[in-house]
């Protein structure tokens, strides 16, 4: 899964060159992936380690940096790429793009363009699970920047007060857009804040998929057993800029250099080699993922655009949009 996410992000990044005017760059108009593209390159172990313990009927909400979570929850990679290309065959028929990627058929209730906005939505899904007496849980991924928004604090309180089946996952890539999160955040971080509401929380190395998986497994088992909400704080690092065209010149190159040494794919490969897996076998997994993604890019390029009239469909049943 980590290889598929890496391959997807790399291909999306490639297709997005010249796709948005920001960070001193101009859009050229021919990019296949347009607009803000938030890549989770380097953060793959968090999505993979958590989602491997989820079932199709568990619910998930994500962030603007949500490709990895969506893939890990089981969404079809090809339809995701089609959505990034804005095509009719994408998950949202070209209406959403990268920031609104979703696959409700696998319980993925949407990425979100607003920081922390997915948290209360997952909370409501968890309450709905309880009301409808369904055997499932809800999981919400959010970033380190999101813990400074009100809905995070409100949702921790609410989840504890109602003892809801929800896992909060703080995917801490250390950067709030172009600002270092540590300089903007008081206290000891997401786990400490959760504990202050009586929620059990743990901090893990988010680049070690084994550690993420092991901690998530235990927490999810507790949640399924009715023991209430849990918070997992996974420390990782954002390899790319805030969006794909952001060269991230505001950060010390040495910081990235150091982070690249603990690339979750390298960490995993080393662990696998230590367990006797042949390097060629490991390479083959990444190669297969890149082949799968290349095929998706190819079909996305050929897929049809949405009809112009789709601008006015799927808005509402009563009083839908129109030119007046």
């Amino acid at each position, binding site marked *: 899964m980590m290889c598929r996410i890496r391959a997807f992000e790399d291909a999306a990044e490639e297709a997005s060159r010249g796709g948005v005017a920001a960070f001193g760059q101009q859009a050229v108009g021919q990019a296949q992936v347009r607009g803000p593209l938030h890549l989770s390159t380097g953060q793959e172990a968090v999505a993979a380690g958590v989602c491997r313990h989820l079932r199709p009927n568990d*619910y998930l*909400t994500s962030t603007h940096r949500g490709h990895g979570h969506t893939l890990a929850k089981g969404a079809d990679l090809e339809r995701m790429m089609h959505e990034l290309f804005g095509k009719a065959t*994408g*998950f*949202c*028929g*070209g*209406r*959403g793009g990268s920031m*609104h990627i*979703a*696959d*409700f*058929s696998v319980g993925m*209730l*949407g990425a*979100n*363009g*607003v920081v922390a*906005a997915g*948290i*209360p*939505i*997952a*909370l*409501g*899904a*968890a*309450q*709905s*699970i*309880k*009301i*409808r007496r369904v055997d499932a849980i*809800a999981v919400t991924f959010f970033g380190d920047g999101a813990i400074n928004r*009100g*809905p995070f604090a*409100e*949702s921790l*309180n*609410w989840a504890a*007060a109602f003892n809801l089946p929800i896992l909060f996952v703080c995917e801490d890539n250390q950067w709030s857009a172009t600002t270092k999160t540590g300089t903007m955040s008081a206290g000891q971080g997401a786990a400490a804040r959760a504990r202050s509401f009586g929620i059990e929380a743990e901090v893990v190395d988010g680049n070690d998929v084994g550690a993420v998986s092991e901690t998530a497994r235990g927490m999810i088992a507790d949640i399924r057993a009715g023991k209430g909400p849990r918070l997992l704080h996974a420390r990782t690092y954002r390899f790319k800029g805030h969006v794909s065209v952001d060269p991230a010149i505001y950060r010390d190159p040495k910081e990235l250099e150091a982070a690249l040494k603990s690339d979750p794919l390298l960490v995993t490969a080393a662990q696998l080699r230590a367990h006797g897996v042949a390097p060629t076998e490991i390479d083959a997994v990444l190669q297969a993922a890149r082949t799968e993604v290349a095929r998706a890019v190819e079909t996305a390029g050929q897929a049809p655009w949405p009809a112009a009239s789709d601008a006015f*469909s*799927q*808005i*509402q*049943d*009563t*009083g839908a*949009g129109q030119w*007046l």
Partner: protein
Amino acid sequence: MAVMNYAAAAATSLGDAMRRDSAVVALGEDVGRGGIFGQYRGLQEAFGSERVIDTPISEATIMGAAVGMALTGLKPVIELRVIDFALCAMDEIINQAAKNRYMFGGQSHVPAVIRMPIGIWSASAAQHSQSLESWFTHVPGLVVVAPATPQDNYGLLQAALQCGDPVAYFEHKELWALDGEVDPGQPVPLGKAALRRSGDDLTIISWSKAVHWSLDAAEILARDGIEAEVIDLRTLWPWDREAVFASAAKTGRVLVAHEAIQVAGFGAEIAATLAEQTDARVARLGGPRAPVGYAPVLEAETRVTPSRIAAKARELLAR
């Protein structure tokens, strides 16, 4: 058929819906005790605290959680207490509830009724007295409703729950005690205005509490032989163009009167549409662009009243 007040009509309507459909739930502050205006009275006793949910004072999360509930098979009725407090939940209403279905290409629906009581309510001052319904008419994805009578509060709440879209539902805080006959078997469709009084000389278009002031204004005008037609819009989006255009064609003069501030109020939309598409002469009357003050003299100075509506009508007739 029974006589009940506007608050009881809402509670009865929601109770009837909850009995019919186990997916309907209500959540918000103090709903378990019946809501601060009695509009949820008896519901937690009847349906339990799992379906009539008392929540923390967390407006953003009340609304956000309701979106999560709606996406996973429930039909939440959200109590935001007063429109002024709903401002704490604007991201969740505008970016999440209203946009969800479109953004995700129709994979999802957000059936939800968002109750945000409006209006000046004696001595409640600047943060408990606003009428911000026009903001919501601007947002694709939302249906906007403002009932003026107990019958309409019963019937429009039913229609709002059945329509499947997120509905911005504006009850008026000074109408809770208004008594009226309620026939649960009489449906009130969304998007249909009600003719409250017939007349040939001019049309007054209104909604919510201002309908009652408009009817009082029509009485004042009638003393001078001026016959005003009064139309209660009931649904602001989609609004009943057919009824408004038909009345405009009949009287040739249309005044839109509402409690909300006149500047960029929904009256501007109706007046502009009539000016573009009909030969009618149009006028608007809304509140002044001033916060609502606490002292009686300050509050009174910002109120739209029957006499102010009647005066505006005479101005329009003289043009």
